[in-house]
């Protein structure tokens, strides 16, 4: 699948296929032409992907082929035991998690989960968790703390679900509680935005000692579409809204609202999921090592200090 801005690449790639086929059928030598076209494609890709607009990165963050939480877990964990339920209401399938072993290290992995086809998307509620999802996540974090295992969270949500039942069961309370509790977790907490980081629904599992964003993800207080509809009173200003919100990994790092960026392969994480997972795995293991140098109290203090320093104002 190609995004709108990838069309020129797709066209050239189609041309390349045609050329090769034609050459084979007619038994002509097109080696030179193929080479030149391949070089052209490579250059075009470089040009397009190194000049992505903010909106284009938002599009990449939502690419239907993009790896989701369970894809990363499948790739990086040698063992994984999925855990379910919040012990109160139900098992929220938009939030997944469990104990895992990565390179000999026991960890708790938690994340939003999106679905890939219509049925899966419905099952996962498009990655939009209800209160029980946040409570399930917190329950698993407390388990991790109890057994002294580091926590890794994968953030990928278009928002906490704004439904009727979620409101009845205290969506706001569930998120608020997570924010507060996560600051006091004694174990290392690593958060990685792997796709969409929309508002409180993202933040609800994103209070960490180290917060990473993959290169083509976004993280902000509102989606560009909703921002457009509220501030411009129309859905048509999403590109402008994305620019105004400065919601990319590069923006967020510049503002010191996240710690680090994990680079993606040219064209996005989905073009080389295994390579991406490998990188993510290395970041996780290196970061755990780094955070283990600190005492639990030092980690908590630094976590609180880091977030407390966020904000710009004049006095």
């Amino acid at each position, binding site marked *: 699948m190609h995004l709108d801005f990838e069309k020129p690449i797709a066209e050239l790639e189609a041309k390349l296929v045609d050329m090769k086929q034609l050459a084979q059928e007619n038994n002509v030598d097109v080696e030179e032409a193929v080479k030149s076209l391949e070089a052209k494609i490579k250059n075009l890709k470089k040009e397009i992907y190194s000049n992505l607009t903010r909106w284009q990165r938002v599009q990449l963050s939502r690419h239907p082929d993009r790896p989701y939480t369970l894809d990363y877990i499948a790739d990086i964990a040698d063992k994984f035991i999925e855990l379910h339920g919040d012990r109160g209401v139900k098992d929220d399938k938009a939030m997944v998690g469990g104990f895992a072993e990565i390179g000999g290290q026991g960890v708790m992995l938690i994340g939003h989960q999106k679905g890939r086809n219509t049925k899966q998307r419905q099952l996962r509620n498009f990655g939009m968790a209800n209160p029980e999802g946040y409570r399930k996540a917190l329950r698993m974090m407390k388990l991790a703390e109890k057994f002294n295992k580091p926590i890794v969270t994968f953030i990928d949500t278009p928002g906490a679900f704004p439904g009727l039942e979620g409101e009845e069961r205290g969506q706001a309370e569930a998120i*608020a509680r997570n924010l507060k509790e996560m600051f006091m977790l004694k174990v290392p907490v690593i958060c990685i935005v792997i796709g969409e980081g929309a508002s409180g629904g993202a933040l609800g599992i994103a209070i960490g000692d180290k917060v990473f964003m993959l290169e083509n993800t976004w993280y902000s207080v509102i989606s560009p579409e909703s921002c457009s509809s509220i*501030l411009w009173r129309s859905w048509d200003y999403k590109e402008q809204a994305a620019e105004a919100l400065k919601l990319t990994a590069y923006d967020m790092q510049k503002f010191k609202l996240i710690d680090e960026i994990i680079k993606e392969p040219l064209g996005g994480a989905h073009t080389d999921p295994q390579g991406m997972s490998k990188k993510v795995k290395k970041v996780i293991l290196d970061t755990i090592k780094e955070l283990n140098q600190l005492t639990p109290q030092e980690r908590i203090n630094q976590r609180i200090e880091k977030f407390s320093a966020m904000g710009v104002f004049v006095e």
Partner: protein
Amino acid sequence: MTWFKRTEKGIVTPTEEKKEVPDGLWYQCTECKKVMQSREHSANAYTCIDCNNHARIGSMEYFEILFDDNNFTELDETMSSSDPLEFSDTQAYPDRIKGSQKKSGLKDAVRTGYGKMNGIHIVVACMDFRFIGGSMGSVVGEKISRAIDYARKKRHPLLIISKSGGARMMEAGFSLMQMAKTSAKLALLDQDRVPYVSLMTDPTTGGVTASYAMLGDFNIAEPGALIGFAGPRVVRETIGKDLPEGFQTAEFLLEHGFLDFIVDRKELKKTLTDLFTILKETKEAKQPKKEKEKSE
């Protein structure tokens, strides 16, 4: 400056020197349309003398209601918004701020201060909905955080009065992180066992509800207040149906277990006084010494 004219919006517009409302000014209840003297209305804690509708009021009125003789010391009075994102939609953010400041006489959407309530030391942070919909940006987050720090240092009970449409879009990522920051500060206050009452007033939604407003030792609300995570319009669009009667009201939240109680504004001062009196640290039952040292 007639309040009467401004009542269509249901938002009472206080003026700078409003303590003594002269005779001859009238207020019309937005709910039952009853017309009463403004003086009567304010003496009734800005609730309707007929139907008890709680009018939307701001920090100035709440401070006046709560602090003895309206005596308090304001914290971070001059703090105001910057424009870290150089944000512009149909209007540049700094212009929006300036316009809002001029119109409201406020610096931003929260005021914080400390003083005595029936002789008890308290710290109060009160949001102003009139300032860009009571939205939370860096200033709101920072002022609330500092008020929490102050309450913690002094071991004085904290009251936060919320009235907000949520996080402020024009500070995007910065606004979002104010949810985290204020929650971090409340975690420390919690650890030190200083009481925190969160009073939710009409309306309290979005990122404010999903952070400090829901983190009180006591979560309370004014009657009829709209309280939620998503706004009613968004929920309606999501489910594609009309919302049930009373959905997301204070009474609805109480019924679903998310509030400790609903308090009539006329009873607010007395109720809080009673609560803080009961919770007061007594000499005999002071916290274990070790714990206390750690918290200071």
